[in-house]
């Protein structure tokens, strides 16, 4: 067994980019693998529901060219987690089309590739639902019904290490994963080489966001993780950054509901007894990460469905008389528009106002609901079709613009529109309709692997 395994994480999301110098520095330290996470649910349900990517094709290709060439030249595997952002079939195929282009342009050949699919057929989910083996992940997630599942574009599940281990065992040099638990592709490299599972997962959890665990932190720079038998170390390959115990411990907290209990596919990580220590040169050493396998293997399902269409307007208000009673006027505008459109059922649409400069960001949760001297107002109509949303929104805009509220002095108009035209057709609005745990016999069965050269 090797003394240590080094993993280079070029950036937090494939396509976010990284300084070439940092990447070259990383390669000089002779990594055993390059692993990059391409996915996130952070940007909302739209990417998954509408089968679109998080980054542009050009941005993804630019990063991938460096990664694929470096992997090929240095004979080390390159692993992409959650390809295309959401890891669904369309997202993986989008990534593969970019890879094909790079391979043909650069004559990188032969390159053994593994593609691990993570789309879960709806009939498989139906069967598990009937047996009560699909449960909401969180108090506010509704139970999954056949109707919701039917409306959902497609369902993916986060894979664990198992299918990635198989791909590594088969000698794949480029592994394209569908949706993966973010740390899995990193953890798989360490575990494949015989290292401790808890440490391998925890190191993956830190590396998956690129240099975000540094001070200063960013997702657009490279990190190296070095896994030893009884600990691991992380460091940025850009000398302008460093890891500190606080920056690394902080990252362990990141985007999780609990600071030291982290649940993944078939596993629970317990980081309660971890020790973080600074060992110089911007490096932090971590010890004591523990992992247990759960008695039942559960995977997280994700899916999104189209729920409505939106048209919106951005405007500003500078008149203090209107700012003072803006919420009252907005309510009056809303009822006026509803009266103007009796032919559209009221329960089929909604009109919402977001008052930026007052409580635009936090809404009802805002403890300091007070406006300044000017207000940004964004209003939207959410309706069943785009044309209804636009018809209603146009009516909200013209009604609001000219509404003669009590005490008004500015009788020429109430709103400053920064753009002409003012009304923007947004398109479809999605929601996360599937966010559930499902039992599965093991971590491999639902994640088929396809090999190609």
């Amino acid at each position, binding site marked *: 067994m090797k003394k240590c395994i080094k993993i280079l994480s070029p950036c937090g999301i494939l396509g976010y980019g990284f300084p070439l110098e940092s990447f070259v520095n990383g390669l000089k330290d002779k990594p055993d693998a390059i692993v990059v996470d391409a996915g996130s*649910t*952070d*940007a*909302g*349900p*739209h990417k998954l529901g509408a089968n679109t990517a998080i980054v542009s094709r050009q941005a993804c290709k630019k990063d991938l060219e460096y990664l694929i060439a470096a992997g090929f030249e240095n004979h080390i595997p390159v692993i992409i987690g959650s390809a295309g952002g959401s890891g669904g079939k369309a997202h993986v195929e989008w990534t593969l089309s970019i890879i094909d282009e790079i391979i043909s342009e650069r004559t990188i050949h032969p390159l053994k590739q593994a593609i691990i699919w993570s789309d879960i057929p709806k009939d498989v989910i139906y069967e598990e639902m009937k047996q009560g083996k699909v449960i909401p*992940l*969180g*108090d*506010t*997630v509704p139970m999954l019904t056949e109707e919701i599942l039917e409306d959902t574009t497609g369902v993916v599940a986060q894979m664990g290490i198992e299918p990635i281990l198989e791909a590594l065992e088969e000698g794949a040099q480029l592994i394209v994963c569908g949706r993966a638990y973010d740390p899995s592709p990193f953890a798989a490299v360490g575990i494949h080489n015989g290292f401790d599972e808890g440490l391998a997962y925890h190191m993956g959890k830190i590396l998956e966001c690129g240099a975000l665990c540094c001070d200063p932190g960013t997702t657009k720079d490279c990190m190296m993780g070095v896994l030893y038998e009884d600990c691991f170390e992380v460091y940025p390959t850009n000398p302008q950054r460093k890891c*500190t115990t*606080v920056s690394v*411990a*902080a990252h*362990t*907290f*990141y*985007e*999780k*509901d*609990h*600071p*030291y209990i982290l649940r993944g596919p078939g596993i629970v990580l317990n*980081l*309660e*007894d*971890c*020790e*973080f220590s600074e060992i110089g040169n911007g490096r932090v050493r971590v010890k004591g990460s523990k992992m247990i396998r759960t008695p039942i293997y559960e995977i997280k399902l994700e899916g999104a469905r189209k*729920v*409505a269409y*939106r048209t919106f307007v951005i405007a500003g208000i500078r008149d203090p008389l209107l700012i003072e009673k803006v919420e009252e006027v907005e309510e009056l505008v809303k009822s006026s528009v509803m009266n103007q459109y009796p032919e559209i059922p009221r329960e089929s649409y*909604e009109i*919402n106002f*977001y008052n930026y400069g007052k409580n*635009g*960001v*936090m*809404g*009802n*949760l805002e*403890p*300091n609901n007070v406006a300044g001297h000017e207000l940004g107002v964004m209003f939207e109509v*959410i309706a069943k079709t785009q044309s209804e949303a636009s018809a209603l929104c146009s009516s909200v805009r013209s009604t609001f613009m000219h509404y003669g509220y009590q005490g008004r002095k500015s009788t020429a108009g109430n709103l400053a529109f920064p753009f002409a035209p003012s009304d923007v057709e947004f398109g479809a*609005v*999605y*929601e*996360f309709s599937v*966010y559930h745990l499902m039992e599965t016999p093991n971590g491999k069965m639902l994640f088929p692997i396809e090999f190609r050269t």
Partner: protein
Amino acid sequence: MDRLVDLAKVLRSKNSGPFEITLDILFDDPEKYRKVVECGIINVQTICQLYHLKPEDICNIVFYQKGLGIKITYNRSVSSGTLRDRDVYGAQQHAPLMDILIP
């Protein structure tokens, strides 16, 4: 009296999955961490008041000494990125914590 923002090194919010938001308060000084934890002000009642939440909306409040950090996770009233959401990443929901006074 110190404000929490003056004692904490990191004060932030972020989605923890699309249905929850998590608030992190992290320190670089064990003394400051201890002071905040021991004064007991970070509790369900304080968070409910600040964020207009009901106690059942709070998933957990955890004190993690090894990481010198406090984590508060609560249910979103609207899931990330769908209609009526105001903060898709949940990244700007931490500000009310800043002015908590620590005796």
